[in-house]
């Protein structure tokens, strides 16, 4: 049985069916054998319980023997047998005759007769009384007058024949009755056996039917759903669960598994979203940004459009956050994100990299268009924000831009370069934008390209130095008007 533990339900079922079939076959064979024994027993009982038939048959035999003995007596008397022998024979004949009479007249012997048979026995009794008288007369006459005894034997023989006819009728009548009982017994046994065979056959069919039904209704669906779940676990998330028409237990289980799968899928989507998006603004986070950037960089060779990365840093956000609290800071971030999204439209993907740092990856803009976008963004973000509680805040945006494949084809290098551009913008007095490589933008006249390539290290130090007053000076939250270069008026008005 231990071996069966890991066998499939179908296998277990098969084993059970085999055991059941074997035992039921054994049972049927046993019952059949018992039935045969019973039949034989009943037949022998019916034979043994034929005392009436036996009695009538013995009676006929005795009467026959008596009659034969009477013939012998007459024959002996005419052939001159010694008187003593004749006497002995006569005596035994008279004894036999008396015994037959006793047997015949014992009514207990003939109690279970049918009406016609009762008539027969009555007639036989009468016949016997006449015959036995003739017999006595013959016994009396035979020694002295054998010829006369022979003549008398003729009459006795008539009487005997009449009796024998009635006895035969009685015997066959009784035999017919007992045979009918025996035949009925045989028929019953045959029917019982037939019923047994039919019942066991039907039982077998039922077992087969049940097995097939169990297989179709339970085992196969379970197998299918198991397979589907294995496929889903292996990564084929869209692998369809088998559908069932019915709403039985298995159907409900399928529904539940379907719901479970749906819940898993939605949870997975939520987790995916949480993993790739910023919880405060709902914008894509650094991870998703880099993913999108890498995707775009892969396609950059095939496309005539460059990929530009815009790194945005809010000017004066820290001041707002410190003076009004995180909730206001968060609200400002959300407002900035919404306004930036409105500006960008379908031109690029906006992401929040952390703190007050945003980034955009654009795959469809040339340098001029990127420049326009940056200018629009600077203008848009610099417009005062009306937050809850009638709070009006104004921040600025410094934007650094790096362009692939001109600057680099590597995502992190590109972002670093954009960062350098950002520093340049900050160095240039904030609330403006700068390209990492000013040459990309031919109209740019703010910075010489040689400046940009001075030293990465010194540029960063400059940025740090310059950032400190940003934090400390509230005035810097409102950058002086006119920081936006006149030459960079946005071509498209922000919505």
């Amino acid at each position, binding site marked *: 049985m231990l071996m069966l533990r890991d066998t499939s339900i179908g296998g277990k079922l098969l084993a059970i069916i085999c055991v059941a079939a074997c035992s039921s076959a054994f049972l049927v064979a046993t019952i059949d054998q018992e039935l045969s024994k019973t039949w034989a027993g009943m037949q022998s009982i019916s034979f043994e319980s034929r005392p009436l038939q036996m009695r009538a048959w013995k009676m006929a035999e005795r009467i026959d023997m008596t009659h034969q003995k009477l013939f012998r007596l007459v024959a002996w008397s005419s052939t001159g047998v010694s008187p003593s022998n004749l006497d002995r024979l006569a005596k035994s004949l008279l004894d036999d005759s008396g015994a037959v009479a006793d047997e015949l007249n014992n009514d207990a012997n003939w109690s279970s007769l049918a009406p016609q048979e009762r008539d027969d026995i009555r007639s036989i009794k009468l016949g016997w009384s006449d015959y036995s008288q*003739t017999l006595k007369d013959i016994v009396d006459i035979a020694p002295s007058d054998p010829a006369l005894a022979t003549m008398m034997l003729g009459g006795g023989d008539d009487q005997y024949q009449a009796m024998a006819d009635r006895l035969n009728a009685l015997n066959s009548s009784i035999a017919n009755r007992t045979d009918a009982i025996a035949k009925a017994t045989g028929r019953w046994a045959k029917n019982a056996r037939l019923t047994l065979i039919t019942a066991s056959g039907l039982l077998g069919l039922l077992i087969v039917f049940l097995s097939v039904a169990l297989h179709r209704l339970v085992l196969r669906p379970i197998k299918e759903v198991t397979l589907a779940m294995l496929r889903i676990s292996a990564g084929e998330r869209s692998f369809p669960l088998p559908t069932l028409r019915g709403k039985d237990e298995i159907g409900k289980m399928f529904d539940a598994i379907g719901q479970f799968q749906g819940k898993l899928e939605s949870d997975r989507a939520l987790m995916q979203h949480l993993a790739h998006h910023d919880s405060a603004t709902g914008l894509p986070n650094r991870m998703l940004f880099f993913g999108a950037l890498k995707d775009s960089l892969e396609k950059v060779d095939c496309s005539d459009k460059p990929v530009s990365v815009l790194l945005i840093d809010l000017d004066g956000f820290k001041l707002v956050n410190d003076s009004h609290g995180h909730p206001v800071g968060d609200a400002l971030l959300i407002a900035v994100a919404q306004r930036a999204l409105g500006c960008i439209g379908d031109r690029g993907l906006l992401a929040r990299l952390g703190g007050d740092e945003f980034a955009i990856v654009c795959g469809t803009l040339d340098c001029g268009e990127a420049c326009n976008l940056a200018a629009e963004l600077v203008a848009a973000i610099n417009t005062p924000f009306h937050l809850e509680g009638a709070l009006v805040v104004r921040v600025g945006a410094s934007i650094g831009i790096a362009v692939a494949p001109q600057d680099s084809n590597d995502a992190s290098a590109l972002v670093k370069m954009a960062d350098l551009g950002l520093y340049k913008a900050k160095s240039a007095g904030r609330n403006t934008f700068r390209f990492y490589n000013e040459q990309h933008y031919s109209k740019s006249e703010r910075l010489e390209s040689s400046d940009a390539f001075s030293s990465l290290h010194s540029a960063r130090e400059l940025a740090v130095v310059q950032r400190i007053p940003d934090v400390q000076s509230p005035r810097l939250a409102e950058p002086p008007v006119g920081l936006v270069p006149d030459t960079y008026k946005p071509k498209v008005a922000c919505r």
Partner: protein
Amino acid sequence: MRPLHTVAIALTLFCCSLAHAEQRGTRDEAVAMVQAVQQMARKEGLEATFASITRQDAPFKKKDLYPFVYDFDGLSVAHGSNPKMVGKSWMTTKDQDGNYLIKRMSEVATSSDGRGWVSYKWPHPITHKIQDKAAYIERLGDRYFVGVGVYMERD
């Protein structure tokens, strides 16, 4: 020697058969014996007559003739040859030809005539051989009949 012997034996056999023939009663003698029985019955009564017959008294023993008396049911009441027959019923007795002779005698006796001849086969009282016999039957009293039979010559 031989022819003489043969003649002697043949002569002896002839004498014997002649003597036998002389022993055989005739039909008239049979009728006469029946009349004798009737007469005695009238004179001395039935019972005495029956007893006399069964005792084989002289008047009822002539040659091979003897009287017998049965009632109408075939019960023998007197027999001049075999006393053992008396007291037995003979209604069912038949001869070799299937002839219920006593029954027929009874029928003759109970007919309107009350008398007549009946032929049948019966053992001879002396030889105990079965022979053809014809008996003269006459009613006797209210419920009996008496008969005397003559044995026929054998061919």
